[in-house]
């Protein structure tokens, strides 16, 4: 495990174990880019990729690059370490982030919010999605105040 830092939830996997449908997301992540699958028929954004669009049930999607920013939809400050090693990490913030550029049906991600004061995080805060390269094949997504 990499060095532990307060507020930064450590990676638990070092490969995305991606299938064909998910690989483009992780390829983009390694380049520091946030992409999302968009329905070719109705334009709905689906995060993460799924076999069918939940609005029109079409099966063809194209990955498009998003602005890479978003807004905290809800969050929690985790204060109790569920594993002993996390004693050096708590408190950390975990949030659901609405991704900019996907308005309408909307796409969200579950992200660790880093480089922030956990006591000051609020719903509606603007964040930027960042990627931390933890191996040759995986860059994990997190976010920080924008």
């Amino acid at each position, binding site marked *: 495990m990499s060095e532990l830092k307060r507020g930064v939830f450590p990676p638990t*996997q070092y490969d995305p174990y991606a299938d064909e449908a998910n690989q483009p*997301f992780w390829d983009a992540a390694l380049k520091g880019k946030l992409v999302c699958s968009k329905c070719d028929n109705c334009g709905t954004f689906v*995060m*993460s990729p799924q076999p069918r669009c*939940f609005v029109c049930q079409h099966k063809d999607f194209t990955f498009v690059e998003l602005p890479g920013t978003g807004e905290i939809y809800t969050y929690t*400050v*985790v204060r109790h370490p569920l594993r002993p090693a996390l004693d050096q990490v708590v408190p950390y913030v975990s949030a659901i982030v609405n991704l900019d550029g996907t308005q309408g049906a909307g796409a969200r991600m579950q992200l*660790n919010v880093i480089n922030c004061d956990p006591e000051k995080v609020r*719903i509606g805060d603007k964040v930027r999605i960042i990627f931390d390269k933890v191996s040759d094949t995986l860059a994990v997504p997190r976010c920080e105040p924008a």
Partner: protein
Amino acid sequence: MTLKDKTAVVGVGATPYWKRGQSAPETELSMACTAILAALDDAGLTIKDLDGFAIYSNSCDPATVGQTLGMEEVRFAATLTSGGGGCAGSLGLAAAAITSGQAECVVSLMTLQQLNRRLGGTQVGDAPPSSGGGGSPYGSNAIPPGLAYRSASGLLSPGHQFSLLTQRHMHLYGTKREHLAKICISQRKNALNRPTAIRKEPLTMDEYFDARILSDPLCLLDYTMETDGAIAVVTVSAERAKDLKQKPVYIMGSANGAAGRWGSAIFTYFQMPDEYFASSGHRTVAKRMYEMAGVGPKDVDVALLYDHFSPMVLMQLEDYGFCPIGEGGRFIDDGNIYFDGGSIPVNTHGGHLSEAYIIGMTHVKEAIEQCRGTAINQVKDCEIALVTGGPAGLPVSGTLLRAA
């Protein structure tokens, strides 16, 4: 055609409740057998009568129980999918089995022993998990390709995830920790006189606010306990119920499911539409359940609301129509949920928060006892009891029971 009033719960049986891991040398199978036999005995039936399993969360393996107890024939063996959300709905499944002629005497049960596994434990371990792939027993042991999207989020347990729903509810409606405290205090008060309750010390507002925050905004006391034990209930046709030992408790209405995009909700999904993100996911189930029973929330005398986390009691009060959406906090402030004098007494047995956590079955047991008139904290003239399962991934469920 519905199953309204066509079946009745006639027997209920339970093991003692233990703190997590303390039920050894019992096993989940031994506890299941004890609870099933006790429920049959309560009804005046024997193992020769039992011919079906209507369970949830794969609570037991009917094959193993069938051979262990030497059942003559198992004619129905089905589980509602997903987890604890199905507990109340398992009674509807039993009623469906009986009214469709597939079985005559059906048990619903949960048996739970948390020795080597903890339901509230981490979902993402130190090492990559060795199983996944959508939960199919025939699937590969591959790591699910969707895991990496969330494995670095730090969201590890149901408590973290229910914290997210709660924070959103607070943001939208002004719900406060004081409201959650009042739920915990009310249920603790209900547990004080119960021999079966595991948390039996009185709880004050100061003690609530002194408790450790585990994940904002939830503290230790907002989380359910982790306990071991088993509870079984037996359902038969209304006709047959007339001749048995106990006063029948009729199944008036039952529904399970949720809006499709409630989906797996807080556990992996989080893409629920804004209009019901900060909810218990029960709204569509509540509507169907009331329609089947032909009654509304004003007709309910006692509500046994699934309370793995205190805020979900508040959100179910809204979703089952006891108060408008967003008004749960104020409804609690006005004293409506108290056993003693409330307009809708809630969790008169102490619930998961104070009595024991057998994944919803203590609520089913209490609903039956309230309708029989034998509850320890008996609601006066109780005719209709509501019992719910979930909030959780789909299906969640609700059932209305009626006194004879």
